[in-house]
């Protein structure tokens, strides 16, 4: 009886709100076609896959690919590189848009504020290929602005993009330049949602702008910061693949090769689909665990969570 009424309730609800569910449909279809159906192919990580036999007919090999993976120095290096680059991204790249948003919030002159915002949003809309081109040109040993400026101080040209020790700073810096401005929009929106009378009350209480930023603005946007942090932690294993492909070269693999580029080279360039699938699956599982952990911790300690 109980079950029946529940089903009836769902049907009644679907009928009454069908327009809303109809609007949801394209997204659900998109998820199924592009994200769930391809998961069928994940099984090749556990198979000796051959494109001639197809996914279903290839023989099972158990964890063989994973064993190879973890004894592969290049893969281990790629995992560490991913973690290091992501950690740098998190430490320097995550606070950047928050700081930008707080700074924009303090600008009182409207035209100046709009101009500054447009300038920092712009790189987001430029294709990564062009961004990489700009970076490569800027750091070029012969014509690059960076080496030109260093030359003024009598410093010899540095071949930045061929030196492994320079790859991470350049990559992380480029990422900040490209995305920090656009990322600040979320935080600006959060700041705009803070009740203005909190500031008025603080003004009467004697707070200055600095105190208001620390005691009102930042605590008020903390839930947004946490949500963004959870998303960010979930994406730790997803280093911006395009930009790495565009900026790295064999000379910098030592610091630049990440799991995604490793998967790309193994799978698409060398045709080892099963092996690459195993690497990719490993990556995804780690990412999944990270999101779960971050979300649970956040829910427990700050009552803010994605779900």
């Amino acid at each position: 009886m109980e079950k029946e009424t529940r089903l009836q309730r769902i049907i009644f609800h679907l009928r009454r709100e069908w327009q809303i569910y109809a609007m949801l449909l394209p997204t659900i279809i998109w998820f199924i076609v592009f994200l769930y159906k391809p998961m069928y192919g994940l099984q090749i990580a556990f198979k000796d896959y051959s494109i001639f036999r197809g996914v279903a007919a290839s023989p099972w090999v158990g964890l063989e690919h994973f064993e190879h993976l973890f004894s592969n120095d290049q893969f281990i290096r790629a995992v560490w590189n991913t973690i290091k680059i992501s950690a740098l991204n998190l430490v320097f790249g995550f606070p950047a848009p928050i700081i930008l948003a707080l700074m924009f919030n303090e600008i009182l002159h409207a035209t100046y504020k709009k101009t500054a915002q447009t300038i920092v949003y712009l790189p987001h809309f430029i294709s990564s290929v062009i961004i990489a081109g700009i970076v490569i040109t800027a750091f070029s040993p012969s014509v690059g602005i960076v080496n030109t400026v260093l030359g003024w101080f009598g410093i010899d040209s540095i071949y930045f993009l061929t030196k492994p020790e320079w790859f991470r700073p350049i990559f992380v810096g480029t990422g900040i330049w490209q995305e920090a401005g656009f990322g600040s929009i979320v935080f600006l929106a959060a700041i705009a949602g803070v009740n203005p009378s909190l500031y008025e009350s603080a003004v009467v209480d004697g707070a200055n702008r600095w105190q208001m930023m620390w005691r009102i603005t930042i605590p008020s946007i903390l839930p947004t910061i946490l949500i963004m942090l959870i998303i960010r932690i979930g994406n730790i294993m997803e280093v911006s693949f395009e930009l790495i492909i565009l900026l790295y070269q064999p000379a910098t693999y030592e610091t630049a090769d990440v799991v995604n580029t490793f998967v790309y080279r193994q799978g698409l360039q060398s045709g080892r689909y099963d092996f690459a699938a195993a690497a990719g699956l490993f990556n995804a599982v780690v990412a999944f665990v990270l999101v779960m952990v971050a979300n649970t911790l956040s829910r427990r300690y700050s009552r803010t969570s994605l779900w």
Partner: protein
Amino acid sequence: MSSVKLSQLVKKYGNLEVVKAIDLEVQPHEFVVLVGPSGCGKSTTLRMIAGLEEITGGSVSIEERVVNRVAPKDRDVAMVFQNYALYPHLNVAENIAFGLRIRKTPKAEVTTMVAEVAEILGLTDYLHRRPAELSGGQRQRVAMGRAIVRHPKVFLFDEPLSNLDAKLRSQMRAEIKRLHKRLEVTSIYVTHDQVEAMTLADRIVVMNDGIIEQVGTPMDLFLNPANTFVAGFIGSPPMNQLPARVGGTAEAPTAEIADQLLPLPPLPELAERIGAQVTVGIRPEHANVHKQGTNPIKVELELVETLGSEALLHTTLAEKPFIIKTETEGYYDMLHDVSSFTVNTDQVKVFDADTGRVFGQGAA
């Protein structure tokens, strides 16, 4: 010495003048209520006193010091906001202590002061709760606690009770009144609710369209409104206003309302206005339906609204709505048969039909 003084205070937004050169003196320990309809400039006036709005013209002085150019924090005022303005991420104790912390008051002192204020407001058990875990009334008490703890020279209240339901509002009203009696801090209180104004104020300032219509004690405004606006704003229900023509003689003037005659008080202004149009004002409470007087005024009864001990009789007089407030005790059965009322001549107010000013109060 006045506690707060406004001199020719003006606020303009572009060309729009929202406060038009008002003058007001608030005495020490006084509780003054600014009341008026939405957009009359009362909140803007309060915010200028607090320093949250720039002053366009004139001056605000607090204890004889002109504060036009003084930052809000240095004016020594505390403000209670309509939406409480509590910091959601801080608990009650931290919210109350906020202003003290900002001023770098020693920690031990903050703790005792917060405890003291919490005691006064009955918040001791809630000190560790966050605003989201409090009821509306408790939140408003925290907001007041934040104002009280700083021992300011002046309290400013900006419609502090309008977010509360009717029952809680009357409770908090009494609490504010008690608090003022206990602390005796000069208070300026803004509301659009005339009941709040009547019950709280030592003096009421009625504002309309950026000017002050009248300043006086609650009973003064009730009994002697300076003009038709105040007469129509104060009192619940407000004063009945009827267009009439002055007739009779200088010694015994009458109002001709349609074909009925209502004796008017022999005011000197009326003597010069025999035959002129005026507005006659009669409080609903002053229209007597039980006593058979000499000149009964006939009305047509449309609706009886029973409120318990009182009833409102909605009638029409000369095709204008006319409300009579009367007791029900012992008369209930006859309320539906009311067809006329009498009124004491000295309780009838007469206003200039053009300017709305009352006659017989000199230049008040």
